[in-house]
């Protein structure tokens, strides 16, 4: 409810990625002429980016809301109820996951509206939703971890530029095998965000690519598990009660 009552938290994750998609599609469309580029449609190639970009907003939303709860003492109020710590966390992440659903729906709708064809079909769309929710959960949990450790909304927001760097030094704008600069290609290969992008991209462009799906889901799950474990630990330390 609180997420939906903050229009900026809902509109920005929808609008900003679409703007970036429009700009990049216009400016980088000539990439499709490169030998080995996987598709004729740059929009189809770039559509994967909003899904991951939206995850960054999930981090910010979950984190800043929780940091505000800590700063205002609202978390203390919740701590005094019989509610278990993990349920508090689930409540915080619930809104993020719902927003992730909304984002996925909007991004897909925009993609379909501009002529993108989802190669993996209806089943692929369902898999895409599942993946997007997993990514939103994982990145949202990273945000809650940052909030619980720092208790500061400003500290959470300072993560945004750091995460953006991860997004840009990846296969965000060009397939890894076509990156000519070796250090950039190496960094993109080491960057887990590349595999998240490629997982989404495979469902849109290729169809069913087992390796891309396994790597994408595996890394998203690893991020989610690690982030949730860290958040649970940080919550226990923050609450520090019996």
């Amino acid at each position, binding site marked *: *409810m*609180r997420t939906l*009552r*903050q229009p900026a938290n809902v509109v920005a994750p929808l609008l900003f990625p679409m703007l970036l998609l429009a700009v990049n599609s216009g400016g980088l469309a000539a990439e499709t002429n490169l030998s080995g580029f996987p598709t004729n449609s740059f929009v189809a190639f770039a559509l994967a980016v909003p899904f991951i970009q939206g995850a960054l907003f999930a981090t910010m939303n979950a984190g800043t809301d929780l940091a505000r*709860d800590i700063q*205002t*003492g*609202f978390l*203390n*109020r*919740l*701590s*005094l*109820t*019989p*509610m278990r710590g993990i349920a508090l966390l689930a409540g915080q992440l619930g809104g993020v996951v719902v927003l992730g659903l909304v984002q996925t729906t909007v991004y897909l709708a925009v993609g379909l509206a501009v002529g993108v064809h989802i190669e993996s079909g209806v089943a692929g769309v369902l898999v895409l939703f599942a993946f997007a929710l997993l990514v939103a959960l994982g990145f949202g949990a990273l945000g809650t971890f940052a909030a619980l450790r720092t*208790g500061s909304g400003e500290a959470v927001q300072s993560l945004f530029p750091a995460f953006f760097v991860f997004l840009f030094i990846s296969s965000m704008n060009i397939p890894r095998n076509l990156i000519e600069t070796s250090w950039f290609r190496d960094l993109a290969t080491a960057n887990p965000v590349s595999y998240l992008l490629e997982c989404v991209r495979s469902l849109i462009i290729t169809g069913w690519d087992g390796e891309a799906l396994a790597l994408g889901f595996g890394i998203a799950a690893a991020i989610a598990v690690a982030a949730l474990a860290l958040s649970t630990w940080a919550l226990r*330390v*923050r*609450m*520090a*009660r*019996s």
Partner: protein
Amino acid sequence: MSDSTIKAEQLVREFKKGPRAVDAIDLGVASGEIYGFLGPNGAGKSTTVHMLTTLLPPTSGTARVAGYDVLREGPQVRMRIGAALQEAALDPLLTGREHVRLQASLQALPRAERSQRADELLARVGLADAADRKVRGYSGGMKRRLDLALALVHRPQILFLDEPTTGLDVQSRTALWAEVGRLAREDGVTVFLTTQYLEEADVLADRVGIIDHGRIVAEGTPGALKAEVGRPTIEAIPADDGDLSRTAAILERFGELVTSSKGVAVRLDDGTSGLAEVVRALDAEGLQSEHLQLHQPSLDDVFLAKTGRSLEGAGDDEEEEERRGLAMEPAR
């Protein structure tokens, strides 16, 4: 019969890189009592409340609330207490009614009871008309009243109020005092109230504990504490400056003369029962007073006697330290 007592023994709380915020305090609060915990900013009041409400583990010592150990039996303690802490802790995007319903849901009240309980509590704290407005539109007094309502949702046996009237106007403060008094008197709720306001402790509390630099420096009923430090003083300013010495000679019959910046003051041997005699004696000598005032010892006098400092204005630096300690990761 349920146990609504609070008992702490040698309770200590240390923060990293700081002095002891609470330094081996012992306190006991009986069932149905209003206990006022009075001290300047940064004395350790909020830290004590955080420990007693299980939000912060003690570094050492023990505390039992409603018969349960705060460290080992936290869930049982939390079921029996309500707390309105120093921050109003409200979500500005929710309405008053949504807050109460959320709290009722979190406290596992039956679904059928939640709406009724919300209506009842909001009416009781005078927020029925504002119940469906978002909290960001509430005044400070309204937020404090909502905070109190939230603390009462699950009918706790023990209520912790951490500086509940700080920043409120006189009217809001008086209304809150009335409600707290009613809770103790009619509902038998034990109230642990922290305050930096002398008047609040004096008016509300059955017993007062005065804390300074993490230690309890005095404890007892307000009357007993004040009687401990002195008897009442009467100060007379004669209408004619030339009558000063005659006024002093009259007043000296009734007690020990004390310093007065403007006239003559005497500490009454017989307490306030000597007041009528003083007035009669001055009148009999034809001495007119421009100003005649009775000064009762205040809790500030008690604090001054115990610590050498006045309560008002004390502790501004210590407040910042205590607040920083509560905001940081708790020490293990």
